[in-house]
């Protein structure tokens, strides 16, 4: 583990500033956090369990998000009982802000863990720069605040934790079993946040894939007695209660909670729409991530090479399930939000790109260096600007969050110019 340096200080400073801005946004701009589409169903477990005492309650969404929100909900519940006992409904007042602050908390946890991961793999300067780009160049902040009741910011935090523990297991053999337990726990949490994301475990299984013996040695460690039992125990801590609850409410331990819905576009996946449409395109709304895609080809140059197969694979996995899903646009919420779930993994390839770019620019001098630096800086700033302008446009009602048209995007982009 790297010791603290000035970049760590800058990172903490930036994070505190961003967190303060988020708190101000929640206090003075966004007045509710629960009632958005799926978000309210993720949350609904808490009022049903703790206020209605209804333990037969069933929704298709698993309980991982509610588990993240639980401590904040309990504080809000106690405050409501104390200060406003007539409003113990589970909604409104303190309960809304509990969810909002919960999103910020997990955003911070995810960012800190991801920064530590990036510092293990790249120079601190590049890790810092990558983190700053992720914060200002993606809609992560929106899903940590206004849409905090959705599962995505929590999945981001758990994905970061998964990467952190994967690296720690190798780096600290003395605590290997403890970290193995925590890896299992985090994997279980990812499963009960969004069941299909259990595939994220491939990032662990494919660690060092393509490096010959190193991969088979890694698999031997994964399935060794020093890890596997602890993975399983850690995973069951959270998965078992979810399965028992499904059994109680539906009669089945394992459930396809989306059984009524289907992959309507299996024969004609909406890949172009998911990636490039004006309506929701991932690279249109978050163009910065084109650098992360380019980074796939540079990962093998860096310490992040151990993840060079897992990261693209998870990207294509998310792309496939989204572009074939009947609701490929994922409802009336900003952008193709499920890509936020793999943001910690894409951060590795973004970091690899930034590290190689930084190295290459440093090899240049004079006018040549200034020209190339200028090109890259302008492109990156433009990509960040697009993200921020469209986010602002959506908040001001210019950009329709369900389906936007190009003239809505144009209004949002050129509004500030």
């Amino acid at each position: 583990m790297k010791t603290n340096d000035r970049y760590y200080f800058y990172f903490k400073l930036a994070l505190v500033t961003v967190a303060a801005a988020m708190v101000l946004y929640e206090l003075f701009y966004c007045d509710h956090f629960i009632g958005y589409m799926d978000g309210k169903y993720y949350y609904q477990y808490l009022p049903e369990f703790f206020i209605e005492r209804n333990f037969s309650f069933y929704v298709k969404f698993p309980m991982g998000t509610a588990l993240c929100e639980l401590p904040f909900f309990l504080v809000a519940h106690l405050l409501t009982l104390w200060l406003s006992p007539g409003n113990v409904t589970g909604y409104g007042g303190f309960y809304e802000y509990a969810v909002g602050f919960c999103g910020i908390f997990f955003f911070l946890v995810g960012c800190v863990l991801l920064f530590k991961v990036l510092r293990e793999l790249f120079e601190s300067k590049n890790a810092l720069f990558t983190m700053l780009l992720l914060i200002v160049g993606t809609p992560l902040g929106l899903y940590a605040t206004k849409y905090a009741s959705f599962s995505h910011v929590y999945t981001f935090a758990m994905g970061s934790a998964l990467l952190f523990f994967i690296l720690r297991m190798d780096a600290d053999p003395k605590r290997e079993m403890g970290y193995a337990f925590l890896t299992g726990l985090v994997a279980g949490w990812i499963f009960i946040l969004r069941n299909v994301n259990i595939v994220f475990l491939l990032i662990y299984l494919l660690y060092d894939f393509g490096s010959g013996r190193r991969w088979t040695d890694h698999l031997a460690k994964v399935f060794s007695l020093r890890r596997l039992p602890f993975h399983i125990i850690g995973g069951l801590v959270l998965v078992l209660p979810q399965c028992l609850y499904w059994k109680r409410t539906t009669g089945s331990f394992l459930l396809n909670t989306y059984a009524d819905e289907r992959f309507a576009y299996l024969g004609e996946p909406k890949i172009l729409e998911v990636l490039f449409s004006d309506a929701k395109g991932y690279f249109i709304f978050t163009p910065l991530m084109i650098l992360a895609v380019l980074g796939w080809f540079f990962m093998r140059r860096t310490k992040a090479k151990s993840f060079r197969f897992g990261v693209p694979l998870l990207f294509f996995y998310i792309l496939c399930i989204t572009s074939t899903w009947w609701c490929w646009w994922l409802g009336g919420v900003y952008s193709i939000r499920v890509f936020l779930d793999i943001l910690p993994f894409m951060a590795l390839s973004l970091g690899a790109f930034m590290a190689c770019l930084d190295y290459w620019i440093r090899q240049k001098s004079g006018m040549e260096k200034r020209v190339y630096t200028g090109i890259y800086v302008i492109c990156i700033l433009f990509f960040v600007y697009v993200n921020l302008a469209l986010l602002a446009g959506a908040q001001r009602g210019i950009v329709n969050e369900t389906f936007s048209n190009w003239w809505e995007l144009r209004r949002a982009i050129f509004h500030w110019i």
Partner: protein
Amino acid sequence: MTFWENDLMKEKQIQQDKSVFNYMVPAILLGFAIFLLLKFDGVLDPSHRNHIRNFESDRDQENLYAMTDDNAATVWGDLSFWGEDTVPEDTTLTVYLDSVRPVRGIWMLGTFPSELSFYGWTGEKWQLLAVREKTPNNCEASFKPMETDRIKIEVTKSEEGQRWEVGEIDIYENE
């Protein structure tokens, strides 16, 4: 050092990176930035070429959407009734043009319900222009030229499993 495992690899990869970072990556990034600018300016959208200003469906109603994407307009109906994807009768798509134009026909690529009716806005009311039955992959309606700034297309007959997805729209004008 984060990057190379040995000097031989370093030399080889530095040569590779030279062309990649000097030419390929800047070209990709600049190309992508230009693509975004064109996209935001609507130049890449077929509707731009067709003088189409806007599409409107009952977009604010649940389960029914009109949108434009790379291929003009798409309309979905009733997809939230899972397992059924029949476009409901009375579903409408209104195409707004950027000015009053002498429209004489519309051609659409996609999948269609049994019957569509085409209306033109006279300034006071909708005037029926044509009724077209289901065709396999495209739908074309020609009618007596009409000066209008908006055309409404309505599903007047729909059967089980019939969807209405418009992949591309062309508006024919009187020369």
